[in-house]
């Protein structure tokens, strides 16, 4: 029994020791829990918060571009997009194969995505597919959950709802290339430059490459912000937390003075012809239409255009990439005659009633100059010479006026001047004179060249925009009209060097001549005078710009026209006009490339566009508040 008692007490003792050991273990566990949770709790709470919430760069939405009446010209469109983040994808091939189960993804495209993903930092999202159809978007949204590192989201994409209509004016946006990035970070400090680079790596970000999109980049872009995203351990976004305090600031909208409806009608009127047209409001100088046709579709450029497509555009003989109205310089031909007449009157070298006889030939020096009209015009005063566009008359008065005076008056009309409208491009053309010729051609000015200058040929070139400004200044009887394109937005400085004014009396004579062109017997564009609106007429001036030199032999045997010569050798047809004649509101210039006859081709186009402008009341009160001129796109709200 003692042994039993021994065993009993042994067991009891050992049980007590074991119980104490168990208690010690429990105490250790509780102490450790207390240390982790209560003593160090705050530190771990911070770590936990960092774990779950990620700040995701949120690109700003680019500002819209609106027309005069608030119609969207460049807007944003929501489109589905699939992207993947390399560092979160376990097996790139497998992930792409899984995506390909749901949407079409060719092996070549998969290879391209893969090489793109490996060419950039491992945390930068790579676009797998964009512009998803609704079905693809829905299907992928469902299945992407099973593919780590792959996400499907709605992205804001730039879109140009009016397609080609304003291609050259708006320009387009594209993903920032290395060259863009170099430009965008120019002059920025290192951290700023890094932030800009990071922003433009975002698949939603685009930068303006041409047109207003380029010029007004700062105005349109906005400020990037962040989104607070809750992610799980695999990096998948679980939810978005409220992020209003750090949300991006969207870009500002920009309004142009153009009436998009008029623009479209004008383009339609051109049909298959290539050319340009500019419609201006005479009172404000607002450009209501700035047509260059044919054009490209800026929507094709937003996600990158293929080299093949780009080559097609570039090799097109009608130059769709070229902004003919702003960058295109053409000899203005006879549309320049008002400038020459005004210069002659200012110089006092001719009396308006003085008559010059035209028998089609004009001799000067040892050469013969020709009038366009077979058989000549006969006896002409200034009014009749403008109306009938008599070349001989203008050879005579140009010679009397001299190159310096004509050049000076031309500049006052805006020739040779680059009008900075707030978009890329813009050319000044050439207003030739002796110093110009010496510097460019290294020889002196010959007086014979003044004769060519007098009929708007020779070295003189002008853009359709300049012709519209000239017309507006004549119609406004010498008031200094300057063209505007941007209504609300970054407006370039109007630091146009301008000296002198026009004599209203001279301008009235010019207007009378232009009225004669369309409304009096002997006018070169009689058929285009009536706007078809039951009363209002237009006054204008035809022009034909020679593309090639006409040889004596050809002139004798009959000048080749139409199908007899290649299209690109045919003359350009021009017409400038204003309307209504009694109280001018609109000025227009039209050039139909290789259209041959100003009267036959360009004048009807100009008339129909003008009629459309009046019917649409394109110069009506705009929807925007005009911004004051600024040097570039960084001021805020402008005063009206």
């Amino acid at each position, binding site marked *: 029994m003692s042994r*039993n008692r021994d065993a009993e007490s042994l067991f009891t003792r050992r049980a007590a020791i*074991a119980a104490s050991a168990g208690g010690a273990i429990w105490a250790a566990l509780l102490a450790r829990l207390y240390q982790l949770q209560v003593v160090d709790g*705050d530190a*771990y709470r911070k770590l*936990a918060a960092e774990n779950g919430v990620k700040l995701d760069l949120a690109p700003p939405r680019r500002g819209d571009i609106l027309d005069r009446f608030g119609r969207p010209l460049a807007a944003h469109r929501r489109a589905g997009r699939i992207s993947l983040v390399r560092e979160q994808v376990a097996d790139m091939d497998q992930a792409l194969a899984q995506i390909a189960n749901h949407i079409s993804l060719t092996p070549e495209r998969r290879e391209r995505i893969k090489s793109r993903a490996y060419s950039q930092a491992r945390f930068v999202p790579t676009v797998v597919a964009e512009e998803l159809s609704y079905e693809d978007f829905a299907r992928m949204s469902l299945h992407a959950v099973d593919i780590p590192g792959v996400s499907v989201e709605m992205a804001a994409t730039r879109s140009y709802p009016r397609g080609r209509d304003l291609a050259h004016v708006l320009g387009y946006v594209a993903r920032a290339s290395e060259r863009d990035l170099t430009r965008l970070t120019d002059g920025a400090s290192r951290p700023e430059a890094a932030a800009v680079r990071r922003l433009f790596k975002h698949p939603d970000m685009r930068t303006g490459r041409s047109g207003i999109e380029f010029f007004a980049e700062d105005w349109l872009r906005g400020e990037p912000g962040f989104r607070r995203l809750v992610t799980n*351990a695999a990096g998948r976004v679980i939810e978005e937390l409220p992020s209003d305090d750090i949300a991006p600031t969207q870009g500002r909208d920009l309004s142009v003075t153009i009436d998009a409806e008029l623009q479209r009608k004008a383009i339609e009127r051109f049909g298959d012809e290539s050319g340009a047209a500019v419609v201006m409001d005479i009172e404000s100088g607002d450009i209501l239409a700035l047509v260059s046709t044919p054009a490209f579709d800026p929507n094709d450029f937003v996600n990158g255009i293929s080299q093949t497509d780009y080559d097609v555009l570039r090799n097109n003989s009608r130059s769709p990439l070229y902004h003919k109205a702003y960058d295109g310089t053409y000899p203005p031909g006879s549309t320049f005659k008002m400038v020459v007449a005004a210069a002659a009157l200012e110089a006092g070298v001719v009396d308006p009633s003085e008559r010059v006889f035209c028998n089609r030939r004009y001799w000067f020096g040892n050469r013969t100059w020709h009038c366009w009209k077979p058989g000549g015009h006969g006896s002409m005063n200034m009014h009749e010479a403008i109306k009938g566009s008599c070349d001989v008359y203008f050879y005579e008065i140009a010679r009397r006026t001299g190159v310096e005076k004509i050049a000076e008056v031309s500049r006052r009309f805006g020739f040779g001047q680059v009008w900075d409208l707030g978009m890329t491009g813009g050319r000044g053309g050439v207003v030739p004179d002796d110093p110009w010729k010496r510097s460019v051609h290294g020889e002196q000015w010959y007086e014979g060249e003044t004769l060519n200058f007098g009929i708007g040929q020779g070295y003189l070139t002008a853009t359709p925009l300049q012709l519209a400004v000239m017309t507006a200044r004549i119609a406004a009887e010498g008031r200094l009209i300057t063209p505007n394109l941007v209504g609300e937005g970054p407006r370039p400085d109007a630091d146009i060097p301008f000296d002198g004014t026009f004599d209203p009396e001279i301008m009235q004579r010019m207007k009378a001549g232009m009225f004669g062109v369309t409304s009096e017997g002997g006018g070169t564009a009689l058929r285009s005078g009536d706007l078809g609106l039951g009363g209002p007429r237009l006054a204008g001036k035809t022009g034909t710009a020679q593309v090639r030199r006409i040889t004596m032999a050809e002139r004798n045997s009959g000048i080749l026209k139409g199908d007899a010569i290649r299209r690109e050798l045919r003359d350009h047809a021009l017409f400038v006009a204003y309307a209504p004649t009694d109280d001018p509101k609109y000025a227009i210039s039209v050039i139909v490339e290789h259209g041959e006859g100003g009267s036959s081709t360009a004048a009807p186009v100009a008339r129909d566009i003008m009629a459309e402008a009046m019917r649409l009341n394109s110069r009506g009160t705009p929807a925007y508040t005009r911004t004051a001129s600024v040097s570039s796109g960084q001021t805020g709200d402008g005063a009206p």
Partner: protein
Amino acid sequence: MSGYADYSGHSYSARAPASVKFGRSGLVEKFGRMPWGLVLLILAVASIGVAVLYSSTVTNPVEADLPMKHAMRFVMTFIMMLVLALIPLKIWMRLAFPAYLGTLILLIGVELFGSTGGGAQRWLQIGPVGVQPSEFMKLALSLALARYYQMYLGARAGGFWIHLPALILIMMPAALIFMQPDLGTTLMLVASGGTIIFFAGLYWRIILSVGTLGILGAPAAYFFVLEDYQRARVETLWNPGADPLGAGYQIEQAKIAVGSGGWDGKGYMQGIQSQLDYIPEQHTDFILTVIAEEFGFLGAAGLLLIWAIILGWAFAIALRCNSTFGRLAASGAVATILFYIAFNAGMVIGLLPVVGVPMPLVSYGGTAMVTVMACLGLILSAHIHRDDKLTATGII
């Protein structure tokens, strides 16, 4: 007859030994002797398990049915526990050696034909069910050791050699399980088996010399016996920050989850770490992180407290038991559950290396639940049959 079985000395009172009664009324009467408070605490722990499992799996549709499965398993093993509670100790004793032998054979079977899960060979497919014999060995070993000491303790209580067969009983399955390799279960077997030997009266000087040997041998074992991944887990314990996305990831994330719970937690289903799947195995071995994150120190300490009450109560039952077999078997069951909890909590809160031991009744997983509920059934049986007299050799 070597009389260890009746060393307690006191005889039965009016009541006849319950184990002899196999009649219907006997069963009802035995059922009435169930310690219902203890049963209620067990129910409470399992309910916490279901609720927390729901929280930890709610964000993952694939795991949506886990809480329900857990509840169903608990209900089934709960019934099993009640049935086991009614089984007389005499029968437990009779089954002890066959159960041990059978499980040992299964362990050898695992070594030869077992399937691999999570890098280790632990599962044996028998018909439609996969079993993990190493889990059942925990209970079988306790029974076998208790059975062994029931036979020999009274007669030769003083000798050292009496403990040698017991050590062999422990080392055979421990070696087999270590080879799988399953460090956690090996340690648990050695620990709970060792506890029984300790209760059986192994000399202090032997305990101390084995302990010293263990401490001295640990570095050698660390370098020559452990596998690379096991070494990595141990290294991670001391320096989890060294490779936070590699070996240390799980333990670092677990510590963040536990620590960020603070005093009273983030609220049910509000745990960021838990809801966002930052912790691998969070519904099985790392379930404590969910409790600690969502219910804070109060929640985690509360669970440990409930378990402490259960274990204390169970240990009191073991102490009160009349027979050596009952005492030692019940103590072994208590030790098994205790080491489950200690290893699991210690690993989750960064006190022990990651050894893959679940939190009893809370972690998702069937085999461990069967083991734990069987252990509890044995303890309940030891309570109901506390006054049964057992012969030295039992039925053998």
